[in-house]
């Protein structure tokens, strides 16, 4: 069942950034993201400034840059989309390396990429320097809705259990000659995910029973 290792996003350390109170970091991230999103796309130098700030923060945190880079793959679908924009967008065209690209498209693509990358990098840095439990406590201190914080807590708690369950189901499939990576077997994979959903749902019911059995009445004790 559960695995012996910590959270995949968290990088253990004792830097000032690791030690900073979680709610301050959360507010910092929120503020940063807001400012980045509101900055006009054409202010290229300002974006370079944002990146510099982030890189300094990474430096202070002593999280290896490669550790963050590897986890930035979540951004890939986003990047693909951004790269397509200059090809399909309308407006005046410019020639870049022999390709005819839309000029407003290029600007839009830059905006998407710059804002996306900065946001993802900042979020990863927060996740790398903050334990999930501290993050939840931080959210609580910021008066995030209690139910929301509870749900996120359960998500973190059962992430390992559910991924472990999925892992075992995939092993069982492979042992019976199904290759989850081959498109031919995707229907089987879809059914497996369905089963995983049902199992997770039933687990949720059992957890709820266990909570009721210990006097839970709908509010977390505090």
């Amino acid at each position, binding site marked *: *069942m*559960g*695995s*012996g290792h*910590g959270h995949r996003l968290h990088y253990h350390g004792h830097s000032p950034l690791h030690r900073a109170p979680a709610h301050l970091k959360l507010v910092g991230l929120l503020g940063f993201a807001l400012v980045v999103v509101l900055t006009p796309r054409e202010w290229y130098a300002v974006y370079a400034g944002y990146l510099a700030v982030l890189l300094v923060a990474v430096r202070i945190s002593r999280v290896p840059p490669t550790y963050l880079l590897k986890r930035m793959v979540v951004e890939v679908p986003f990047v693909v989309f951004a790269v397509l924009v200059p090809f399909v967008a309308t407006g005046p065209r410019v020639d870049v390396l022999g390709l005819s690209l839309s000029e407003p498209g290029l600007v839009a693509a830059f905006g998407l990429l710059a804002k996306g990358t900065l946001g993802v990098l900042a979020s990863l840095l927060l996740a790398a320097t903050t334990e*999930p*439990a501290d993050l*939840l406590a931080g959210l609580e201190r910021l008066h995030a809705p209690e139910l929301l914080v509870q749900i996120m*807590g*359960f998500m*973190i*708690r*059962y992430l*390992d*259990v559910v991924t472990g369950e999925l892992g075992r189901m995939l092993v069982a499939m492979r042992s019976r000659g199904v290759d989850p990576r081959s498109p031919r077997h995707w229907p089987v994979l879809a059914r497996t995910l369905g089963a995983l959903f049902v199992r997770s749902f039933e*687990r949720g019911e*059992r*957890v709820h*029973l*266990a*909570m*009721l*059995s*210990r*006097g*839970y*009445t709908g509010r977390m*004790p*505090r």
Partner: protein
Amino acid sequence: MTPVLDVRGLAYAYPDGHAALRGVDLHVHAGERVALLGPNGAGKTTLVLHLNGIHTPESGTVAVSGLPVEKEHLAEIRRRVGIVFQDPDDQLFMGSVRDDVAFGPANLGLRGEALEQRVLEALDQVGMADFRDRPPHHLSFGQRRRVAVATVLAMRPEILVLDEPSSNLDPASRRELADILRGLDVTVLMVTHDLPYALELCPRAVVLSEGRVVADGATYDVLTDDALMRAHRLELPFGFDPRVTGRPTGPESAPPAG
């Protein structure tokens, strides 16, 4: 004396119409350790879920130390009856062992120093006090099972109900859990398929089959009744023969009358 557990004529069918319990009578007195045996699908877990009001009986009654299991008493019933579920991952849902053990007593209204005291005491009883700051999902299965027992002990239950406590434990963890259970000063009802475990820990055994109690007596007598065992799909594991092991001795091995 009022029995800790008083089940009379309990019948229950699941919403899909399957009759899981068909008139169960069971009395457990203070200080007893009783094994609840029976084949897969006999209704053992269903019975357990009636003991603290998770399921509502179709007919019949359940009372805990004289208090009927009814809606208006649920909070007190759930304090009196401590259920340890089969899968510790269902039972341990908080971020740390301490928070998890504190969940029950905090729901009872304990706070601050008293709560901390209660948590440490329960963790001490199962030998897990050193793990109080760890997240439960980073513990081994046997450790999680022990913490699950502690979460329930922290509520100071009058009766501890365990659903297959020895399942998935390695032999050493299984024995350690037996030592813990034997050392507790609490009434125990233990659902199990592990017949040697039942003989070792519980002087008295009740056999449930197809929703009915078909035997109730000294565990040694139940396990050595070949006809009964065969009729209800109960089989001794290879190499285990209670007749060779002998009738367990000691002051607690004689089932109390009643």
